[in-house]
């Protein structure tokens, strides 16, 4: 018998049904099968009234976006996993017409609000001379097929249509980059809440054309806004001023980690490796114990840790909000500090325990340095969990022995999962701790609302996103949520205040288990 996939499809005909419900079908699996094939199978074999949209079946028209196991994607380019059952639901945010067909009218109104066409103040010459360089950047973000999957997944759009969502903010950037368009698209972007995006990259992740909307549209428009003299929000500017003045995004409170540490070198006998530790601002100034935990965990696994005393902010807040002047100055400084430390201490790898810093060092610093001198920074960057599992290797890890008997779930920081491709490693680490019952949160990769300057600049919106996140966390039934980013940790512990659920940083939890195991 052919292999079958259990396919649950949301059905709803508002003319007849009180509420949507899931209907199960057994779909015969074929190699290479897409979600659209599965839907067509159901329609042809079981129920021709099953409503969903499709046209081209080749990722060109953007008709067939649906939620596949919780995440919106276009059906025709999403492969069916024979090992997993399928749950297919209509896109979020848009009212249902029937089954998987949603009403796009609101989206269409939202698009029209931005005057989504090249506005000209005079008729062009024929032929019009346009050089390839002038349109190079337009070309990339022009591939959008308006499937609207990103709108369904966007945590900001989920809270408010004040922000037009990735698909539409992209169109504003496309017009800003077009040399022929005469409208003030930067002013328009401000009016359209361009500072609402947390740069969570959910849109890029599911985009059938892989358009990097946060970088190519949102951050680009923000940089142009800064250049044009639009002020940042007070909270955002505070970070920037702080970085420029002190090299740290936040003011000093307790004794900073880098000052408290008595040495730069934490070495072990017969070490298997040596890394530099980029602390980032928050571990240095706010979470000193986490920093010490990271050093301890690595030492216990036979790795020398070098902590250069002089460090500087990666300038993520500046990159995210568009202050490229501050950002680029920081890039040079960070690169210089760590390249010098490499030579002095003999390491080639830098470990970070902050998702935001890691993403910024990898995605934002490298191109800046490469453009400046033709080659990227000399050191490799790894997240702690990634370093432990992929570089040290699971088989070589010293297992923590102290039991921590808890139901624990995990929040995947956007800039770790989608920003650096580190998805499974932190969970692997959690599962190594004896006693831990790991609970998978189907929404673990949803944004907490802190990033992109939103917590600093738009606190109310940030809280709304966090409140939605809290609902996801609470639904898991876990008594602890862990993560791998100080910024997420602060945001999540804030929103969980008053609840029973504890928020922990993975290195802290690991160190705790190691220490318990010593006794």
């Amino acid at each position, binding site marked *: 018998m052919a292999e079958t996939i259990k396919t649950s499809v949301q059905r709803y005909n508002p003319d007849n049904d009180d509420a949507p419900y899931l209907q199960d079908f057994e779909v015969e699996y074929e190699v290479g099968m897409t979600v659209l094939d599965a839907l067509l199978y159901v329609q042809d074999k079981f129920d021709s009234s099953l*409503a969903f949209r499709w046209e081209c079946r080749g990722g060109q028209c953007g008709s067939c976006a649906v939620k596949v196991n919780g995440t919106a994607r276009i059906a025709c380019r999403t492969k069916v996993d024979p090992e997993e059952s399928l749950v297919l639901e209509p896109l979020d945010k848009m009212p249902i017409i029937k089954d998987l*067909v949603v009403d796009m009218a609101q989206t269409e109104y939202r698009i029209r609000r931005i005057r989504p066409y090249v506005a000209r103040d005079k008729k062009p010459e024929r032929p019009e001379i346009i050089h390839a360089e002038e349109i190079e950047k337009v070309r990339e973000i022009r591939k959008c097929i308006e499937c609207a999957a990103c709108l369904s997944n966007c945590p900001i759009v989920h809270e408010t249509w004040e922000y037009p969502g990735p698909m539409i903010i992209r169109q504003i950037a496309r017009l800003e980059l077009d040399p022929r368009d005469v409208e003030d698209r930067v002013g328009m972007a401000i009016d359209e809440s361009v500072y609402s995006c947390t740069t969570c990259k959910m849109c890029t992740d599911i985009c059938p054309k892989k358009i990097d909307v946060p970088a190519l549209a949102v951050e680009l428009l923000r940089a142009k806004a800064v250049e044009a003299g639009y002020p940042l929000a007070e909270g955002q500017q505070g970070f920037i001023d702080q970085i420029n003045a002190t090299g740290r995004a936040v003011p000093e409170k307790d004794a900073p980690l880098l000052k408290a540490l008595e040495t730069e070198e934490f070495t072990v006998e017969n070490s298997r490796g040596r890394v530099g530790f980029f602390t980032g601002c928050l571990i240095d100034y706010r979470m000193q114990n986490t920093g010490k935990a990271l050093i301890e965990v690595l030492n216990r696994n036979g790795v020398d840790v070098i902590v250069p005393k002089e460090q500087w902010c990666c300038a993520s807040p500046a990159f995210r909000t568009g202050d490229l002047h501050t950002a680029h100055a920081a890039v040079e400084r960070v690169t210089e500090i760590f390249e010098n430390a490499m030579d002095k201490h003999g390491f080639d790898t830098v470990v970070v325990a902050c998702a935001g810093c890691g993403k910024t060092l990898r995605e934002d610093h490298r191109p800046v340095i490469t453009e400046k001198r033709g080659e990227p920074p000399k050191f490799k960057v790894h997240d702690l969990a990634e370093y432990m599992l992929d570089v040290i290797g699971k088989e070589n890890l010293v297992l923590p022995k102290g039991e921590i008997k808890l139901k624990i779930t995990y929040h995947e920081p956007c800039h770790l999962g989608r920003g650096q491709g580190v998805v499974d490693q932190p969970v692997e680490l959690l599962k190594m701790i004896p006693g831990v019952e790991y609970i998978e949160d189907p929404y673990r990769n949803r944004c907490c609302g802190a990033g992109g300057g939103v917590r600093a600049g738009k606190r109310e919106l940030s809280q709304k996103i966090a409140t939605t996140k809290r609902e996801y966390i609470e639904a898991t039934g876990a008594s602890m949520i862990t993560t791998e980013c100080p910024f997420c940790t602060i945001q999540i512990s804030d929103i969980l205040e008053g609840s029973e659920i504890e928020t922990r940083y993975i290195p802290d939890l690991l160190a705790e288990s190691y220490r318990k195991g010593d006794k």
Partner: protein
Amino acid sequence: MEELPYRTILCDVLVVGAGGAGCRAAIEATKYNLDVIMLSKELLGKAHTAMAEGGYNVSLGNVDPDDNPETHFKDTIVGGNYLNDQALAEILVRDASERVFDLEEMGAVFDRTPEGKIAQRPFGKQSWRRTAYASDRTGSEIMVTLVEAVRKSAVRVYDEIFATKLLLHDGRIAGVTAIDLKYGDYMIFRAKAVVMATGGAGRVYTVTSNAQLDVGDGYAMAYEAGCDLIDMEMVQFHPTGMVKPESARGRLVTEAVRGEGGILLNSEGERFMHRYYPGVMELAGRDQVARSIMTEVREGRGSPDGGVYLSISHLPRSIIEFRLESMIEQFEDAGVDIRDEPMQVSPTCHHFMGGIKIDEEAGTNIPGLFAAGECTGGVHGGNRLGGNALADTQVFGALSGESAAKFAKEHEMTGLPKEKAMKEFLKLEAMLKREKGISPADARKELTDLMWTKVQIFRKEEEMAFAVKELRRIENEVVPKIKVDVAEKRFNPGWHQAIEFGHMVTTARMVAEAALIRKGSRGAHYRVDADPEDDGYYNIVVRKGANGDMELTKQELIITKITPP
């Protein structure tokens, strides 16, 4: 007569279809201070035009300065095997440049030459590098641009509206009946002038590059209304469609792959085109390349999955990545990296050269009814050149919009043929109410397999005669028994398919009946048993006769400049 509830909406110019031609017609018509409605069977922007890949033919001479409209005309006529309506082909080559500049003015982003002009690439059977492009997503670029322009215009877009029948009043066009796909309501759109821009019908074949909506609605509606249709037997099989996985079978592999230097190889690694068309090799006409590929497959030199190999891996990766980005993506999904490995390809039903017969104003033989784009016939003759279809949509889209607007300016609204509309609604309603009958999915499979096996690339008298007989039977016995599983009107694909099925059968019949009476080979119509006496220099016109039978007549070619050899 029983009455069903319906809504009536008025406008000056009604455009049926929202692809390249429909959008362009609607944009043009609004320039005349008229109320214009555009009906879109799909959501705005999702039309098949978005799937066109390679480009737009226009003799700008930006790369090869010696190119000019005359040469473009000659290539189009020779490529079309001299069957083209030369008056229409003259319009195509004359207006292609202004229309491409229109697109740029609206915001299109075509790839550039070093001087900042529109870049042009070589395509099959063309004397010069003539095909303007935006990587290999030119159709998408044009569709996106037109959507931007429609959103700027005052065109009223009614999306997900399925027009089912043309309404006539005293011999003049009066409007259309339609259903609202979303909610199932019956609707009448009344207009002073109507433009048909309903696209093609690749979906009547099992293997096709076409989108789901390309089922021949326009051909069938025009036929039923009494329009003349021309060259319906001329169906283009694009030589390179995807072979696997099964679900991607037939998906287009753009001619730009060969234009950029891709080569075709058989299972023995031989570049077989040198045995068929040594002068032009892979850039022979689409009909010629398709037949060459099928001959290789039939003679046992095909790939294991029944195609041949198309390889581009000898080109620099940067060129492939810049100019063929969609192809990389499309084959990545099939697990093939085209930068390193060959693609497996075989022919796929791609384009209908034939269609509604139009004059030099894009008018049909029904007053007030105009047509543009793939639903029309005559421009491309027996074989369409790659890149001429996108140009066709823009040139004739604009022309039909202008003509319809002028007609609407000069005429009052007609009366309402209410009985005819109600008869149509009752027919549609009956499909829902029928207790016993045949499901659209089964019926469709029977039809498309019949066309794919009997009225295909290599045609034979007995096979076509069989197809014609079967199609008449299907029309008489299956179509009236089509039954919808669930009697719901609200977004019910089963119902939509049932309605479409009637259109598919009518369209398929026109193809098969016309093919049967063309005894010689010409253009895309290739007979293995060709009558050598039949040089094929005529057009076949199909219309619905006074007694309701399909009438086919041979007509003399329309020649303005080039006489067939």
